[in-house]
């Protein structure tokens, strides 16, 4: 085994895990693109289904982009622990002596870098497609930057609980979508407020509060879920 990966310190283990997962992700580049392509396809369906009216599209743009982001996240979530679970690496993590919470946090961070960040980077383009006013475009990007990590964090709990199931993906969506409701409400409200020229900073504050809360709590719940699934 590469001595780099048996690093004794917590930060060393964290960095090693993030590096390993990023490397693995970039070795499978097509899989990396799936959530992004999915997002583009789903969003392009809305004008086709609803009609190309610019006002209508601008009105529904925040909701459509956010719902598509939720769906894209849930689709990519299953990969969070799947391969590590199947080849036994996850069990090695548990007996490695490092807290499973930290390992879960490293996996979640990588998941966001691989699946969440592309959505954030792509969102200006999506907003233009949906005819979102330029002044609320930056707010859209900020809500996604603050919100998508929360999606990965809360989602990790659901993945931890369903990982031992053969077809956990379908169940996963039932488990996590109700938990995503507040984020969807607050994030879309922020963008809509910005479109209407109303103050929106309080919503960004709420999203930040949600991010801080879920960063502190979700990894513990995800670790507990993984322990149950591995028992």
């Amino acid at each position, binding site marked *: 085994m590469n001595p780099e990966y048996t690093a004794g310190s917590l930060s060393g283990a964290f960095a090693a895990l993030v590096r390993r997962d990023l490397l693995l992700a970039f070795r499978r580049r097509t899989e990396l693109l799936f959530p992004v392509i999915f997002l583009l396809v789903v969003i392009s369906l809305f004008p086709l289904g609803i009609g190309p009216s610019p006002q209508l599209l601008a009105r529904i743009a925040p909701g459509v982009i956010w719902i598509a982001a939720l769906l894209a996240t849930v689709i990519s979530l299953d990969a969070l622990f799947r391969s590590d679970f199947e080849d036994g690496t996850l069990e090695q993590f548990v007996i490695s002596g490092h807290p499973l919470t930290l390992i879960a946090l490293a996996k979640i961070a990588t998941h966001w870098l691989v699946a969440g960040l592309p959505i954030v980077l792509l969102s200006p383009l999506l907003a233009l497609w949906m005819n979102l006013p330029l002044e609320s475009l930056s707010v859209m990007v900020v809500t996604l930057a603050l919100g998508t990590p929360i999606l990965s964090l809360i989602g990790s*709990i659901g993945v931890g609980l369903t990982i031992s199931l053969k077809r956990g993906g379908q169940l996963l969506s*039932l*488990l996590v979508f*109700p938990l995503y409701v*507040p984020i969807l409400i607050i994030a879309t*409200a922020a963008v809509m407020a910005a479109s209407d020229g109303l103050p929106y900073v309080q919503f960004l504050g709420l999203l930040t509060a949600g991010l801080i809360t879920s960063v502190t709590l979700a990894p513990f719940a995800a670790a507990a879920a993984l322990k149950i699934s591995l028992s």
Partner: protein
Amino acid sequence: MNTNIAIKDKPRKNALVMFIHKLGSPPWFYDFTGKFIPWLWLIFGALTIWGLYLGLVKAPADYLQGESFRIMYIHVPSAWMSMLIYTSMAVMGFIALVWRIRMMEVLAMCSAPVGAAFTLVALATGSLWGRPTWGTYWVWDARLTSELVLLFLYLGVIGLYNAIDEPRKAARAACLLALVGAVNLPIIHYSVKWWNTLHQGSSISMTGGSNIDPSMLWPLLIMAFAVKFYYAANLLTRARVRLLEQDLRKGWVKNVVREQKP
């Protein structure tokens, strides 16, 4: 019965502590609850008949909503129960996860279908009530919406529990999910409430006002009390069946079956 000898031999502790410890043992629980479940059903039946008689026959029609307000006697207790049962499920799930008490896992998991049923009843009666009062079966009212999300949370817990084959692992996973849901439930509730005021301006008040006449209030309180007994009776009946299913190959179940045979 000869199944609880081991417990009797232990040194005597506080009687209440002993009692709670004993309830953690499936055979003792099975025996003990079997004795008073019929009474719970009986009290529930009596209270329901009394409450519904007062509510549906005796109480005067509402001056605003007419006869349709009477659906309240089913709707409001169900809605209260849907939230109470989720809380009790999460508390039992917490106890089950922290102290690994198997009885608590069984009780928490048997609560989920009862709670989901109450939520469904609350939603169905709510939308039936909405038709004459609001003129539509469904509005994205804050309370209706959070009740709907609550139903999804229940379905998630039930779905996860049924998806995992090994019963104890399934119960622990679903208990954890129930706990996560309980942490999120207030956030969901307040965000939905706030979202609704944002989108609709003024929301429609479901109750006629805070000044409710005693002749209308009493049946409601009786019904609210009655459904607690329904929950207890249903939960314990379910838990007994679940225990028999899970312990099919254990000695105490064989004794139970032997006693049942004439």
